[in-house]
């Protein structure tokens, strides 16, 4: 893991050059819209698929829903390098812990591992994570670990740069006690609205429903997203 670094993490050793355009020197960021919703029996998580370096889209089909264990996923907005490295480290730690315990790990454990890493390296990392999954003890759970390293359990959570545009939609349309299909529909609509308005979010909408039986993944392509206005 990253040892202690100089405070100026934005400076690079090589200087800017006319021949290398600005976006090639920018750090890769998953601008993003992510969200997670609990329902009785599991969780539904969703994300867009755009990764940007400055103004260029480096990957238009990114999978931001990362499995960290059989029934636990995380959504990764923020710096692509930071979130990939943290997710890899937590996957390893959780796998080790699960083998020691000889039983599937709790979602709360996974969330706390993320929190420990995000809090300790809070100055160096740019990563806000949503951890969601199913375990035997508490069923479907969603934990948010924003930048800075707080941890809080919420029934529904949105994150990333596109989340600002859908807080109103989320507050007005979320009802406790939805079924899995209703949650998937709710997520699709929310992601569509955010992708429509946020420049750093776009591509396809990736969804996953995690229950006791396993993970069911869905992709909604760009032209199949729900239409809200005729403008």
């Amino acid at each position, binding site marked *: 893991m990253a040892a202690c670094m100089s405070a100026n993490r934005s400076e690079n050793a090589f200087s800017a050059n006319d021949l290398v*355009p600005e976006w*090639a020197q920018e*750090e890769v960021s998953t601008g993003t819209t992510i969200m997670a919703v609990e329902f009785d029996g599991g969780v539904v998580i969703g994300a867009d698929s755009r990764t940007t370096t400055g103004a260029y889209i*480096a990957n238009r089909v990114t999978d931001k829903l990362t499995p960290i264990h059989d029934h636990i996923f995380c959504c990764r907005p923020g710096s*692509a*390098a930071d979130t990939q*490295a943290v997710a890899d480290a937590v996957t390893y730690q959780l796998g080790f812990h699960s083998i020691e315990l000889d039983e599937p790990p709790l979602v709360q454990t996974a969330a706390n591992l993320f929190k420990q890493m995000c809090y300790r390296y809070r100055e160096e990392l740019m990563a806000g994570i949503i951890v969601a999954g199913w375990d035997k003890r508490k069923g479907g759970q969603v934990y948010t670990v924003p930048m800075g390293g707080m941890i809080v359990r919420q029934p529904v959570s949105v994150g990333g740069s596109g989340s600002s545009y859908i807080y109103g939609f989320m507050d007005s349309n979320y009802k406790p006690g939805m079924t899995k299909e209703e949650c998937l529909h709710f997520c699709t609509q929310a992601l569509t609205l955010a992708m429509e308005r946020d420049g750093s979010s776009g591509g396809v909408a990736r969804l996953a429903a995690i229950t006791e039986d396993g993970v069911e993944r869905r992709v909604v392509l760009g032209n199949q997203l729900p239409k809200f206005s005729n403008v």
Partner: protein
Amino acid sequence: MATLSVCQQPIGGFSFEYCKRNAVLEFECNKLGHSIPAARKTGTTICGVVFKDGIVLGADTRATEGMIVADKNCSKIHYISPNIYCCGAGTAADTEMTTQIISSNLELHSLSTGRLPRVATANRMLKQMLFRYQGHIGAALVLGGVDCNGPHLYSIYPHGSTDKLPYVTMGSGSLAAMAVFEDRYEQNMEEEDAKRLVRDAIAAGIFNDLGSGSNIDLCVITKGKVDYLRPHDMANKKGVRRVHELEALPRP
């Protein structure tokens, strides 16, 4: 260079000991009216594509130092293992050294496991090393190879993030090359079609980007065979000077 220490984790992070000395030297140099030499960057167009039986990697051959072409025919496709090759964009020294270090570690790993190395292993090693240096190593890589699980292609950014995709481009000419790919890429292409597509993508970068130029190198990796085609296409041949009649006469 110590041999055993290569495979061990180095302690601490990047060493900034010489920064103050370098700043003083630069100041003294500037006082005398000279500037310190710039790092040689490979402006570059590199790309890779997955086809039916394997991977095609492509690269241009120009290395720039500021506004001057430092090397007209440099080799940007680096060997990692018999079944894995890596194209490098960014600072030339960084891509050279990073790929050599990982190639060496991967060979040791392969001897320990007794198996042909997997592309995912090389990807993991590269991303962990680049993340450790927090983007100060200016190496943007396109890693491709064929292993027991089939062909794999990764793009690796200097800060340590990676993407696994069927077609990737990197470098200053990557937009031009990506335009060609987005237009003509298909799944399960034949080898000749894939080679033509990569050649055209690199050519787009060479002719539309100032940081890329000269020839096109290709590397075709399939199960059990690697074709390293250098040069595959000399897109910018130097012309032959026309000899003037008077100059053709023997000198007295």
